[in-house]
């Protein structure tokens, strides 16, 4: 097996006396959807916050590998915005965080900020109509259009993001994350609040991202129909500890997991 995209080793996060995440180690692969599940308060979002630089871990190492270049990044040592800009980790939120006053298209363009900033000579050259910037801008718009098309938002491109319906905002968040050209996409409960049809579309979109864009997807999700259907690999957390790690079939029958989910096998299945 090739070296994993992400290796998390002995990750521990304490807030004062509270141990939110306790010695969790796991790996996530390229071209796979890795789901992180567990009851409320298990520490799933805290792990995400660590991976994306919101929190610094108390103990532990998070190593991200760019397979194409062989470059390694130690995420725990990086400043927040560099994790996105250099290590190319993107994320979405449980409670949607779009730029509400910008248009849908602008939300996707702003996600390509660093590429455009470089191409425009930090805006200065761009002001004088520098050709390289024009090209980069056109490419950025093309990429945005591609994702608008994929997420079915083309019609709404010039509307303010806050005007989109809930499901549209969710899809836009994923589109925006993809516009940063991530190697790893972290999704925090993307199916929350979606109706069954939308949730089906989401599954298709995530599979498409995994298969066509060949990146690793890390997914926190409560909706087991989503998790069991699309995950390649599942990690189960409970009270900050990892209690299981395996394929959906293994997890479904894991006694520790069934116990954590209130001893009700239907819940886990």
């Amino acid at each position: 097996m090739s070296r994993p995209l992400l290796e998390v080793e002995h990750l521990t996060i304490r807030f004062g006396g509270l141990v939110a995440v306790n010695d969790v180690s796991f790996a996530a692969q390229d071209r796979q959807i890795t789901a992180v599940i567990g009851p409320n308060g298990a520490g799933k979002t805290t792990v995400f916050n660590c991976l994306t630089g919101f929190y610094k871990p108390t103990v532990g190492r998070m190593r991200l590998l760019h397979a194409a270049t062989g470059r390694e990044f130690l995420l725990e040592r990086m400043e927040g915005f560099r994790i996105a800009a250099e290590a190319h980790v993107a994320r979405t939120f449980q409670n949607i965080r779009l730029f509400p006053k910008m248009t849908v298209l602008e939300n996707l363009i702003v996600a390509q900020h660093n590429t455009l900033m470089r191409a425009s000579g930090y805006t200065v050259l761009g002001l004088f109509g520098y050709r390289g910037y024009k090209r980069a801008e056109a490419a950025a718009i093309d990429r945005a259009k591609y994702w608008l098309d994929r997420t079915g938002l083309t019609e709404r491109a010039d509307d303010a993001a806050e005007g989109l319906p809930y499901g549209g905002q969710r899809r836009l968040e994923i589109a925006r994350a993809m516009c940063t050209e991530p190697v790893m996409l972290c999704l925090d409960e993307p199916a929350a609040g979606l109706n069954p049809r939308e949730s089906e579309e989401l599954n298709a979109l995530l599979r498409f991202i995994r298969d066509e864009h060949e990146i690793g997807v890390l997914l926190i999700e409560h909706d087991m129909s989503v998790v069991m259907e699309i995950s390649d690999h599942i990690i189960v957390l409970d009270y900050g500890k990892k209690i299981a790690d395996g394929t959906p079939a293994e997890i479904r029958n894991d006694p520790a997991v069934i116990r954590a989910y209130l001893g009700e096998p239907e819940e886990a299945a």
Partner: protein
Amino acid sequence: MQDSFSYFFNQLISGISLGFVYGLIAIGYTMVYGIVGMINFAHGEIFMIGAFVALIAFFIMDAIGIGWVPVAIVAMLLLSMVINAAYGWTLERVAYRPLRGSTRLAPLITAIGMSIFLQNYVQLLQGARPRPLRPLIPGGIELWTVKTPDNTDYTVQISYMELMIIVITVVLMAAFTYVITRTPLGRAQRACEQDQKMAALLGINVNGTIAATFVLAAVLAAVAGLIYTLRYGSIDFFIGFLAGVKAFTAAVLGGIGSLPGAMLGGVLIGLIETFFAGYAERGSEYKDVAVFMVLVVVLIFRPTGLLGKPDIEKV
């Protein structure tokens, strides 16, 4: 007595050009407020430094024998913009960035501290006496002539100075609007304004963007400083205070956080001030009172300012 329309017209032009000065400073207040949510009370001093740098630039040009006015003015403009950018950047780096994430009051207090510091710093370096500058742009375009009752001619004109002020400001505002709406930097600024953490997650350097905002604000203040120097022909270390307070008033009047609002507020304040001074009895003594009265009235009836949008609490 002059023809009343001619008098009105003169006041109008003078009010607009004064308003543009306030507007340029007000944009700095409103932009910084938008992105970091603080009032940069040292911004008036940045404007004052811009005025001084412009003056010094002129003396340098004069000393090396380049007295031709257009060249001198361009040099003044460029030098004051560059030096002011450095001041704006340093101010943010030294006084505000270390306090980011602390209580809301802390940067406000350092802002006031920086304001006092910069005033005294310029007073020490440049002296407390007003520094004069001879009028660089005499003359104007004669529009029409009216007979005054005692049968002398009175010529209504737009001075070249006022014309230049209006042209510079309009060009600058157009460029500035372009930067904010169409460039990566402008988009990053708007993104940081709406959600700094999310902006960072998309790889935007938030600290860098905030620094760039201070630099832009300082550059606009430099232009305002240059215009002020040319318009009044005399500056001292204390001009930043009143101009700063009025520009702040303009920003609040237009709706703090709104860029067109800042310009609108600036022009309104300039017009109110000029018209009050021109028409009311003993108006020129009370013109500042008139300005702040209008602010009070607007805030009572429209607390978010003229173009400001009310903050809707998120659910």
